[in-house]
């Protein structure tokens, strides 16, 4: 990698089987129970999916929100490699790790959600493809990006295994994968909005717009940045590390502008199309619209650049608000604002919720294992470590 300042990464070490880890494992086990049911008895046995709502939270949250969280790698790669802001480099590896899990588990969710998953491989057979399908574009793009992510992240494994030769060879071609790693998410994150455009009037006018692809792309970007900030704050607390506050602050400025752009686009579009009137009707849609907009606005206010240094608390809260707002925007688009016709109703079943919870638990578990065993996080100055040496065991959680 063309590093600006040859960073050193190290595994954190420490026990894997901590208390939180066991709780997460239990949640993943519960999810496994429902997944066995799903694969033995079919989707109908576990989910509340219907002909009216063929997509539930496994798509709306696990995939659409999950991959938006997974945009950390995209957003940081864009910043570091395309905009050449090398100072953000310490964030690259954790961000890529987040992306890898976000996308891998998003892909897994699609597989779980596919009624005839055993035919899933057909989408990779060109002679069976329907090239006008935006779903095909999204699916292939996500699959390709997952491969790219693995290559982008592979230096971590190569370092761990001490395979310097391979690492050096890989470095020569890595720029291609980094390029693809920025191109592909641009394509499929906007396509997730395009999928909704073709839903037409089934999507509430509060969300339906030709700008959906752009809105989804911008939203994915600031969610990607937000997850980096969020993760950095949590890692700092959990692993007793100093926070890269300076870098994170500058990231917040970028997020603020993106968020402002998103809100202006969204509101202007609603006002010019006249669909803003739907926001004043007494419907769940309208309520959700206001909640979602208020969350975005609150995040914007917290993020807005001030003269004073933002506190860690403000960083944390703004990232959290942004993630919740982005999540809500996606859930609104894919489930709440989606009206397939009279009589149809959807609320996830216990099984669906537990599978989603289990998948996110698995993500956190994998993250913990990876940062403790592989050189993901940048090394901390020895001085700092000594200062906080009173907790050598690091009863760390996320």
């Amino acid at each position, binding site marked *: 990698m063309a590093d600006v300042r040859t960073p050193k990464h190290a595994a954190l070490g420490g026990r894997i089987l901590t208390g939180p880890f066991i709780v997460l494992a239990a*949640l993943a086990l519960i999810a496994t129970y429902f997944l066995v049911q799903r694969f033995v008895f079919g989707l109908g046995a576990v989910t509340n999916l219907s002909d009216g709502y063929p997509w539930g939270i496994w798509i709306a949250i696990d995939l659409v929100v999950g991959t938006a969280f997974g945009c950390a790698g995209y957003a940081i790669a864009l910043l570091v490699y395309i905009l050449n802001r090398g100072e953000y480099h310490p964030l690259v590896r954790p961000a890529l790790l987040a992306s890898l899990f976000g996308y891998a588990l998003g892909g897994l969710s699609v597989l779980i959600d596919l009624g005839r998953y055993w035919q899933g491989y057909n989408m990779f057979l060109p002679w069976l493809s329907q090239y006008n399908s935006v779903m095909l574009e999204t699916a292939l793009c996500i699959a390709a990006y997952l491969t790219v992510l693995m290559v982008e992240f592979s230096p971590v494994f190569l370092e761990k295994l001490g395979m310097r030769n391979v690492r050096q060879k890989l470095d020569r071609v890595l720029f291609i994968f980094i390029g693809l790693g920025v191109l592909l998410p641009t394509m499929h994150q906007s396509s997730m909005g395009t999928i909704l455009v073709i839903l037409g009037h089934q999507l509430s006018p509060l969300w339906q717009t030709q700008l959906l692809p752009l809105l989804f792309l911008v939203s994915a970007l600031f969610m990607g940045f937000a997850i980096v900030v969020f993760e950095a704050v949590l890692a700092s607390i*959990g692993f007793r590390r*100093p926070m890269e506050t300076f870098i994170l602050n500058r990231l917040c400025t970028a997020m603020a502008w993106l968020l402002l752009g998103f809100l202006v686009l969204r509101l202007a579009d609603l006002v010019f199309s006249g669909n803003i009137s739907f926001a004043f009707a007494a419907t769940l849609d309208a309520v959700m619209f206001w909640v979602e907009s208020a969350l975005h606005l609150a995040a914007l206010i917290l993020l807005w650049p001030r003269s004073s240094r933002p*506190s*860690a608390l403000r960083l944390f809260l703004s990232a959290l608000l942004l993630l919740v707002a982005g999540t809500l925007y996606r859930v609104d688009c894919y489930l709440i604002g989606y009206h397939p016709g009279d009589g149809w109703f959807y609320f996830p079943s216990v099984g669906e919720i537990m599978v989603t919870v289990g998948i996110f*638990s698995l993500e956190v578990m994998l993250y913990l294992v990876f940062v403790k065993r592989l050189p993901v996080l940048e090394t901390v100055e020895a001085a700092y470590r000594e200062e906080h040496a009173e907790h050598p065991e690091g009863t760390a959680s996320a």
Partner: protein
Amino acid sequence: MASRQVAIPVPSHASDEPIGQLDSYQGALGGVTRREFLMYCTGVAAALGLSPALGVRIANATTSATRPPVIWLSGQACTGCTETLLRAHHPTLESLILDQISLDYHETLCSGAGRQAEEFRRRSMEDNHGRYLLVIDGAIPTGDTADYCKVAGERFVDSVTHAAEGAGAIIAMGSCSSWGGVPSSQPNPTNARSAQEVLPDHTVVSIPGCPPNPYNFLVTVLHYLTFERLPELDHRNRPRFAYGRLIHENCERRPHFDAGRFAREFGDEGHRQGWCLYYLGCKGPETWANCPAIGFNDIGESAWPVGIGHPCFGCTEQGVGFTKSIHSLATLQTVTPPTAFPRVVEDQGELSTAAVGVAAGVAGAAVGAAAVLASRLAKHGPPPSEAPPAGTPADKASSDQST
């Protein structure tokens, strides 16, 4: 009719000669106006899957001064194939045989009889050698039992062989002449054979069916008259436009088959609801014909056996009609019915208290965890404090906590 001299909507590429004498011809069309006649010809073109513009060309062909002679020979048949032509309304049989073709010999429809009729046939065949249309209905007894069917002292097999020599085209009308039909069913005491078997050196166009839809015959004839060649045929010499698809493919009850809604016996709930007749022995899945697409008797949709609730018995198909028992299951040539079917009525979604509880719990845990973290940050700032970090275990599960 001069007052009705409206412009005929002929597209610029519509070929050929002008319609010419149509207006003066109106009387001969049996009271049909020119507009109606052109619409009929366009309809024929549509049945053939041709451009509507060719309707004009068909109109020209059918009104030409020299009407093509047709010799119609009936063998071991029930006259059903002639009867079916009486049920055609565009054109009617009389307009066909009086205006469009010159039906020189037809045992059922001849006005002459006996020696006179036979003599007329012989003379027509001589005069029109090489260009008359030979239509055969009925199976042909052969071998030692060829004597079982004789007309005017001549064995039918000989009449057919003789007539075929000077024929411009040969059409086998109905299942009996197409592949043997009822007379050839086992034990086949007369050694009944199809026209194609008796005339191995000729191309015999088959219009199977018992009886066939009259329009399959008429369209074939009009195609021949218009283009002076036969329509595209399949490997059994059946016109593809009529026999190119399984009945099963176009059947109006096909969605019931796919959804697993079957009548199990006559008069049961499913039968009354109009569900699929597969389990009553419908041979639609192995019978090639266009019955569901065009129906019978010009009375609209559903006027065909399956449409009125009786399983298709495969009358057009050799080895099915008159061979398989009517209520035995068809051999499926395309998809087999699945073992599990979707439900007829779909649930529209439900709200379970447990799910709401779990969702609220997850949300609560997430909010709680966030609050704990926030307060910790507010009190101690970013560097880790002395207490073990992070909130409740549940917060790890919440979506907000994920990477």
